[in-house]
C-alpha cells in the first residue's frame, strides 16, 4: 500500500500484485454470494474491479485512521458492482494491463466445497475469506522455505497435523511419528518450529498488506483477537 502511493511504476505494480494476490479470492467469492453473480460474471467483475482500481488509483484514498482496508475495499467493490450493473456495461478485460494470473476455477471449487453454509453476515464472511487467503499464502511460503532448506519433513508434520482438513482425520502425535519415522518428541519439536515459522510468515505477509505501522498493529490485534 505504501508502494502503491509511491511514484515508482515498478513499486506500484509490485504492491498492486501483492494486493490482488491477497484479495482476489475473497472478492470473487463475495461477488458470487453477495451479488448472486454467475461464476463467469463474478470472474469478470473481479478482474474488472482490480483493473479499474489500478487505473483509477482507487486505493490511494484509503485513510487507515478511519477504517480497516478490508472495509474500504469492500465499500469500493460494492460501489463498482452496483455501478457496473446499473450501466449494464460489458467489462473490458485486459485493457493493456496484464493482471496477475487468476485461476477462478480454483475459487469456484472452494465455493462448491463450502456450499451448504449460509452467509448472513457478509462483513464476517469477507474477513474469514481474507484470513483463509492470508493463511494459505503463508502456508505456501512455509512449504517453499522448508523445501528449499531440505526440511520438507518439518512441513509434512505441520501439514498433516495443523492443516488436516477434518478434525476426525487428524492424527495423534504418536500416529504422526509412526507415519514420518520420527519420535513423538521430534514431532512436538518439529511442530513447534513449523508453527513458529508459520506465525512469522503470516505476520510478514500481513505486514506487506499494510500501509503503516498503526494499520499493521490494528490488523495484528484483529488477528490475535
Amino acid at each position, binding site marked *: 500500500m505504501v508502494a502503491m502511493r509511491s511514484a515508482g511504476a515498478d513499486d506500484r505494480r509490485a504492491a498492486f500484485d501483492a494486493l490482488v494476490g491477497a484479495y482476489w479470492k475473497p472478492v470473487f467469492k463475495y461477488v458470487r454470494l453477495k451479488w448472486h453473480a454467475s461464476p463467469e460474471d463474478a470472474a469478470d467483475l473481479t478482474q474488472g474491479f482490480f483493473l479499474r482500481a489500478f487505473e483509477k488509483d482507487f486505493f490511494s484514498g484509503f485513510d487507515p485512521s478511519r477504517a480497516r482496508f478490508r472495509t474500504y475495499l469492500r465499500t469500493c467493490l460494492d460501489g463498482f458492482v452496483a455501478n457496473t450493473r446499473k450501466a449494464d456495461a460489458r467489462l473490458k478485460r485486459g485493457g493493456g494491463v496484464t493482471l496477475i494470473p487468476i485461476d477462478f476455477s480454483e475459487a469456484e471449487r*472452494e465455493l462448491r466445497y463450502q456450499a451448504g453454509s449460509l452467509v448472513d453476515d457478509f462483513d464476517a464472511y469477507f474477513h474469514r475469506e481474507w484470513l483463509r487467503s492470508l493463511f494459505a499464502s503463508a502456508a505456501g511460503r512455509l512449504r517453499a522455505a522448508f523445501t528449499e532448506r531440505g526440511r520438507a519433513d518439518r512441513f509434512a508434520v505441520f501439514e498433516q497435523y495443523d492443516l488436516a482438513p477434518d478434525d476426525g482425520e487428524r492424527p495423534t502425535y504418536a500416529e504422526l511419528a509412526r507415519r514420518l519415522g520420527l519420535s513423538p518428541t521430534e514431532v512436538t519439536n518439529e511442530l513447534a518450529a513449523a*508453527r513458529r515459522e508459520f506465525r512469522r510468515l503470516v505476520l510478514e505477509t500481513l505486514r506487506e498488506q499494510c500501509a503503516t505501522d498503526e494499520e499493521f498493529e490494528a490488523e495484528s490485534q484483529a*488477528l490475535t483477537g
Partner: protein
Amino acid sequence: MISEPALDRLSAMFRGPDVAGTRYELISVLGRGGMGTVYLARDTVLDREVALKVVERPWLDANEARTLARLEHPGIVPVHDFGELPDGRLFYAMKRVRGDRLDRWLASGRDLADRLGVFLRVCDAVAFAHAHQVVHRDLKPENVMVGEFGEVLVLDWGIAGHPQNADGQQQIAGTPDYMAPEQARGETVDHRADIFALGAMLESFAETAPVLAIARKARSDVPEARYQDVQAMAADINRFLAGRAVRAHRERLVDRLARFGRRYRLPILLVLTYLMVRVLLLWFLRL
C-alpha cells in the same frame, strides 16, 4: 484450500498462547501492545498471580531475558521466568503490579511537585538500567505503574534489547509520540533515545517554563543536544524543585527575581520586617 476446521485451528494459534504443559494458567488479558500481549496468569506452582508477557515476534532471546532478570531495582518490575511456549512463542513472567498506570494517575489531578516526584523515580530506574547497558526503547506513561503503596515501577522492558528481524536487520519498535528520531529511522540507538522519551513524557505534564525547557532539551532531535545522561536531567528537575535556576532555561531578569523571591521568601520577609521596624522607630524617635 484451507478447510473450515483448519482455518479455526490456525486462527486459534493466533488468538491465545498455548500454555499447555507450562506452570501457568491464563486468567485474562491485561494489555496489548506492538510487541505482544500481557496476560494475567496464575503460577500454579507458587500459587500466585503473575503478568505473563507473550511476545509475538522474536524481540527477546535468552541472553536478553537474563540481562533483564539481573536488573534488580525497586523501580523495575522483576522478571521471574522466561521460556518458549509449545506454540513457539516466547514468554516472560513478571511480578503483577497493582495500581494505576502513570497516564491515568496523571489524569487524576496531581500537583506539579507530586508529578515531578514520580517522574524522578522513573528517571532513577531508567538511569539504573542504563548503568547496566540496558536501553528501554519504549518509555511512555502507559509503561509506568504507580503502585498501591506509592511505589513507581517501569514496565515492559520487552524491547530493551536489540530487536532484529529474521535477516538480522534492526527492527523499528516503540511508540511514535515518544520515539526518538534516530529510533524512528531504524538506526542504532543508545541510552539517549530513552532520554528523548523521558522528555516527551515530561512535556506532556509540564506546566511551567523551566520544566518545559528541561523537557524540550531532553527531546532535542539530535542526541548530542539532549542531556547526555538521565542523572543530568534529574539534576535539573531537582534544581527546579529546590527553587534554583535550571540549566536548560535562560531566565529573564523578572523571572529570576520572582524565583529568588519565592526561594528566600522567609529571610526576605524577616529583613523587610526588620527594616520597617527600624524606620518606624526612627520616625517615632524624631517626633
